[in-house]
């Protein structure tokens, strides 16, 4: 009996060793590395193969590689390495490109490079009642003696639902039109885009097209797929709509602007959006830092690429010399009431 127990134990031990060895034979060892060159090359290659706007933005990515690799040296501090690699990503001029470490987040910050087209205090002090209403992500009120509905939508927080949309659209159903203010809306949850668009269509409508990187070549993409919007079952708005946009309207904000550009009863007013129409991915470097960059392209119905911004139908800028008036909002009200 003792010999049998010994044989069993030996058998189990042998099997365990064999299995562990077998597994290690088929997988590469953990690739965690603090080597600055390994991390730099990994990030550069991921971008080189998957980033979606090299050709549109005319970025010479190989030159960027050589320029930034020259700034790295053995023993470089984490802070300096982060600075070099973050700056390399900023060469893409894309706010969907970020490097995230445990001590910093890199960003291109396009919105800080352009003139804002809204000053919120001007609107609250001179246009809205002090008792304006906040419903979910929307701040809203009547303007022009109840003839116009004003809806401020500052961020796609993922909070849009049928309850808050029904309430807001029902409230302004009998006005001459609504102003949807998405100036400096930096984006967020894409699901909110379609929840919003679905309240302004009467039948299933193709609003834009999207394609994704499908190979290592800078211009290798899948076939474009239609983004379609179906009418929602709740309240919808059939009247005139003015969408206010500016250079700070980004990402999901630009998706909404592009979608609304395809709808006949909606007019875009203000400044060209900031773009951000590439859906970003998410990944991790050998040293544990994470990154993201755009891997898709969004195209207009005729194949136009609006990554550099969705232009307004009516161009109108805010005059920063007079903070008592919002010229963009005034123009929108005039447009609805004429």
């Amino acid at each position, binding site marked *: 009996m003792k010999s049998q127990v010994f044989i*069993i134990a030996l058998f189990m031990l042998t099997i365990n060793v064999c299995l562990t060895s077998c597994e290690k034979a088929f997988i590469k060892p953990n690739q965690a590395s603090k080597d600055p060159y390994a991390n730099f090359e990994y990030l550069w290659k991921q971008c080189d193969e998957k980033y979606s706007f090299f050709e549109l933005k005319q970025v010479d990515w190989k030159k960027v590689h050589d320029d930034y690799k020259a700034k790295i040296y053995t023993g470089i501090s984490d802070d300096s390495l982060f600075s070099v690699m973050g700056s390399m990503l900023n060469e893409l001029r894309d706010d969907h490109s970020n490097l995230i470490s445990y001590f910093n987040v890199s960003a291109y910050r396009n919105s800080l490079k352009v003139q804002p087209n809204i000053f919120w205090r001007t609107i609250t002090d001179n246009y809205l009642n002090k008792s304006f209403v906040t419903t979910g992500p929307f701040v809203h009120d009547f303007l022009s003696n109840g003839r116009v509905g004003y809806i401020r939508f500052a961020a796609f927080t993922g909070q849009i639902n049928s309850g808050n949309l029904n309430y807001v659209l029902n409230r302004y159903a009998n006005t001459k039109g609504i102003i949807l203010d998405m100036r400096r809306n930096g984006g967020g949850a894409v699901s909110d885009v379609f929840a919003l668009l679905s309240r302004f269509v009467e039948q299933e409508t193709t609003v834009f097209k999207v394609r*994704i990187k499908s190979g290592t070549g800078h211009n290798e993409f*899948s076939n474009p797929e239609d*983004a379609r919007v179906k009418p929602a079952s709740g309240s919808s708005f059939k009247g005139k709509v003015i969408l206010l946009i500016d250079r700070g309207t980004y990402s999901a904000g630009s998706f909404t602007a592009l979608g609304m550009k395809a709808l006949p009863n909606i007019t875009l007013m203000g400044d060209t959006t900031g773009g951000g129409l590439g859906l970003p991915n998410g990944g*991790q*470097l*050998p040293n544990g830092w*994470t990154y993201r960059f755009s891997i898709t392209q*969004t195209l207009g119905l005729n194949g136009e690429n609006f990554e550099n911004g969705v232009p307004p139908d009516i161009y109108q800028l805010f005059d920063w010399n007079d903070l008592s008036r919002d010229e963009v909002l005034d123009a929108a009200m005039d447009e609805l009431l004429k």
Partner: protein
Amino acid sequence: MRLLILLICTLFMLSKHSSAADEYLSRASRDWQIRGGVGMTSFRDFATSPLTYRGYSAGISLGRLKTDSLRHRSFSIHFYSGNTKPLSLYDLRTIEAHSSVLMLDYARLYRIRPGFLKRTALFAGAQLSANGIYRVNAGLMNNALGLDGGVSLMASFKLLRDVSRTESRRIKVLFIPIRLKERNRSLYWQFNGGMFNTNFRNGFAYGSLKQTTNQFPLPGDYRLNAFSGLRFSSDLAIRQWLSNGNAIQLNYHWDFYSSGRKFEPLEFAIHSLGFSFFFNTRRS
């Protein structure tokens, strides 16, 4: 394919030569198996990270087994779930991935070379295995959710050894006499090697257009990759029968899956120690 046909033919030819096996290994039974276990899960999805994530997981399985002297058939469902952390050089306590795995196995094995070793039986056959791997890692932003599926046709080998205690014994532990009763026990080792592996995995850029086209996220950019990847699994177990015909079992389960090199691959491994109850529904 030729290899599979050859293997199946060989197994059938060998199984035809079965003779009366010894009484214990020939016993027919139909059992429900309920298993719980704990183990170590590790995975690495090269599409999102070169780092291996590792952590503890809990698992539960439900199986139906039909065995007789010549055939062993089983269908089982396994579910493992747990949290993993990257094996990184930095302290990344804030980055954590939750992973869950669902596996369905159907195995059909035939006895070969009966009587060739005393109290030992060797079975061979095939196992069809499907697996779904789900992970959530908020640190990966739009790639936070990973979903992979795979189906493998595996060649299976099972070595079964009767290690029953046929006579009661008396031993002393710290001068305390203990009587060891007769026990019916078996030890087995089953190894499954994937011959044809197919997986369903996100495409080149590892992203979904469906977020921006307002459509159901699947299949999205998912591709069916036939004859791609690796899959191995094994079980090492010792089972003891109870007087009422039911049984308990201690086992070690290992499963390894790799999605193949067509795109950046997913590697997944589970090592699990489990305890099972067998409820025999065919009393003889």
